[in-house]
C-alpha cells in the first residue's frame, strides 16, 4: 500500500503541472515553484544541520569495523576503527566516495540442510547504490549546461564521456540507462525482498519513485518528444540570473512536469531520509574517533554540580549496610 500511495503521489506531481502548464499556469510551475523549492531546500537543510549540531552526543559511539588501536604489536585498522582525526578523515572519504559500510552488507539465511544460520556477503545493494548515486551526480553536473552561460569546460568533458558510445541522435547518455538500472534495483529490493518490504514505509518508496519519475520524464523529453532545448535554457537562465521570465517559444508540458518533480524533491529533501547527504557528516557512529579507552568522554548534558562518585566513596557511604547484608567489601570497617 505504501508503494502504491507513493506511486499515486508521484503521478499526481506529473499530471498536475502537465495539465496546469497547458492551461496557462506555466509561470506558477516554471517560476514561482522553483524559487519556493530552492528556498525551502536551503533553509530547511541548514536548519536541520544546525539542529543536529546542537544535539549533544552523550557517548563515544563509533562503529568499530576492525581492530582498535591498542598495544603496539597488535595490528589495528586505522580506517575502520580510527583512533585519531586522520583515521576519521580517511574513513569519511571512503564512506562518502565508495560507500564502504554498504560494502560490508551481509544477508542472513537459514541453511537448507538444517536449522543452521548462514551469513553470506551481499554486495548488490552496495553496487546498485553506487551506480545510482554516481549517475545522479553526473546527471546533476550535466544539467549545469542549462544554468551556466557559457557552458564551462568541465561540463563539456562530462557530456563527452557520458555520451562516448555515440548511440543515436540526440546521443544517448549512459548515465540515463544506468540510473534507471540502479533505481529499479533499489525499488525491486524493497518490493520483492520480504524482510526489506516489512520495514519499508511510504517515506522509503516515495523518494525512489520521485527520482524515478524525474529520470523518466527527463528521458521522455530528450529521446521521445525532443523539447526545445534553447527555450528550456532561456527559462533556466531567467531563474538563475534572478530575472525570471517565460521563454517566447512554447515549451512542451513535460518540461513543467520534470521541473515540478525536481521542485518536489527539493522541498521534500530537508524533511526526509534524503538528508543523509548532510547527515553522513554528522553521524557519531562515523565521525568520532574510537578514543573511549584513552580519553575521557564527557557527556555534554552532565550536570556540572554532580561530581564523579568513585566506588571507594560509594563503599565509604554504605560500608556498614553492605557488611550487614553480607556483601563483599574492599576495606573492612
Amino acid at each position, binding site marked *: 500500500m505504501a508503494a502504491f500511495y507513493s506511486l499515486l503521489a508521484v503521478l499526481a506531481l506529473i499530471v498536475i503541472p502537465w495539465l496546469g502548464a497547458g492551461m496557462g499556469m506555466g509561470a506558477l510551475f516554471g517560476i514561482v515553484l522553483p524559487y519556493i523549492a*530552492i528556498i525551502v531546500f*536551503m533553509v530547511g*537543510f*541548514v536548519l536541520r*544541520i*544546525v539542529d543536529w*549540531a*546542537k*544535539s*549533544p*552526543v552523550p557517548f563515544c559511539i563509533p562503529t568499530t569495523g576492525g581492530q582498535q588501536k591498542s598495544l603496539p604489536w597488535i595490528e589495528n585498522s586505522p580506517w575502520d576503527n580510527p583512533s585519531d582525526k586522520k583515521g576519521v578523515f580517511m574513513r569519511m572519504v571512503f564512506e562518502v566516495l565508495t560507500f564502504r559500510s554498504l560494502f560490508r552488507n551481509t544477508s542472513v539465511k537459514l541453511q537448507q540442510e538444517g536449522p543452521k544460520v548462514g551469513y553470506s556477503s551481499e554486495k548488490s545493494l552496495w553496487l546498485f547504490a553506487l551506480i545510482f548515486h554516481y549517475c545522479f551526480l553526473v546527471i546533476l553536473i550535466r544539467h*549545469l*549546461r*542549462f*544554468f*551556466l*552561460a*557559457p*557552458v*564551462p569546460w568541465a*561540463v*563539456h568533458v562530462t*557530456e*563527452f564521456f557520458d555520451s562516448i558510445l*555515440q548511440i*543515436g*541522435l*540526440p546521443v544517448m547518455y549512459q548515465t540515463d540507462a544506468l540510473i534507471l538500472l540502479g533505481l529499479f534495483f533499489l525499488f525491486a529490493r524493497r518490493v520483492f525482498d520480504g524482510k526489506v518490504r516489512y520495514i519499508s514505509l511510504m517515506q522509503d518508496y516515495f523518494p525512489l519513485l520521485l527520482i524515478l519519475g524525474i529520470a523518466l520524464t527527463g528521458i521522455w523529453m530528450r529521446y521521445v*518528444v*525532443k*523539447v*526545445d*532545448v*534553447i527555450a528550456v*535554457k*532561456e527559462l533556466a*537562465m*531567467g531563474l*538563475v*540570473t*534572478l*530575472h525570471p521570465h517565460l521563454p517566447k*517559444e512554447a515549451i512542451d508540458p513535460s518540461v513543467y512536469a520534470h521541473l515540478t518533480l525536481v521542485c518536489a524533491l527539493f522541498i521534500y529533501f530537508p524533511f526526509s531520509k534524503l538528508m543523509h547527504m*548532510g547527515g553522513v*557528516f*554528522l553521524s557519531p557512529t562515523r565521525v568520532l574517533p574510537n578514543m573511549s579507552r584513552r580519553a575521557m568522554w564527557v557527556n*555534554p548534558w552532565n550536570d556540572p554540580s554532580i561530581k564523579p562518585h568513585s566506588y571507594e566513596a560509594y563503599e565509604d557511604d554504605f560500608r556498614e549496610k553492605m557488611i550487614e547484608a553480607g556483601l563483599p567489601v574492599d576495606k573492612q570497617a
Partner: protein
Amino acid sequence: MYNAKYIIPGIIFFLALIFAPVAYNMGKGAFEVKPELPKDQKDCIEDAQTMRDKHMQILNEWRNEAVRDGNRIYVNAKGQKFVKSLTNTCMSCHTDKAKFCDRCHETVGVAPYCWDCHNLTPNQKSPIPLAQNGEAGGH
C-alpha cells in the same frame, strides 16, 4: 552548537555550491540566442517547429538511409523532394556553420560530430577521397 569550527564552514560550502551558478552568470549580460536565418529562403524542408525539435533525428536517418541503403531522396510532408545531404542541401542555405549551427549548439553545450567528416560548404573539397568507381556520394 557543537563542533562549530567544522559545521559552519561546511554550511558555507553548501550554500556556496548552490549560489555558484548565480555568481557564475553575474555580469555576463542578457541570455540571447539568435541563429542567423537565410535571407533568400523562407521555408526549410519541414516546418520550423519540426526542424527545431527533430533536425538531429532527420539528419541521423538521412545518414543511415543514404549510406546504408543508397536512398538519397527525401520527400517531405508537402511532397517536395530533397537530396539527403548535410553539406549540399542544409548548408547550401545555412551557409555559415558558426552563425547558424554553432549559435544554438554551443549555447547548450552540444558538440555534434557531423563535421568530423562533412565539409562546411558545398564548394569545399572533401576531406574523404571520392570512390574510384561508382557514384561519388554528395558529401
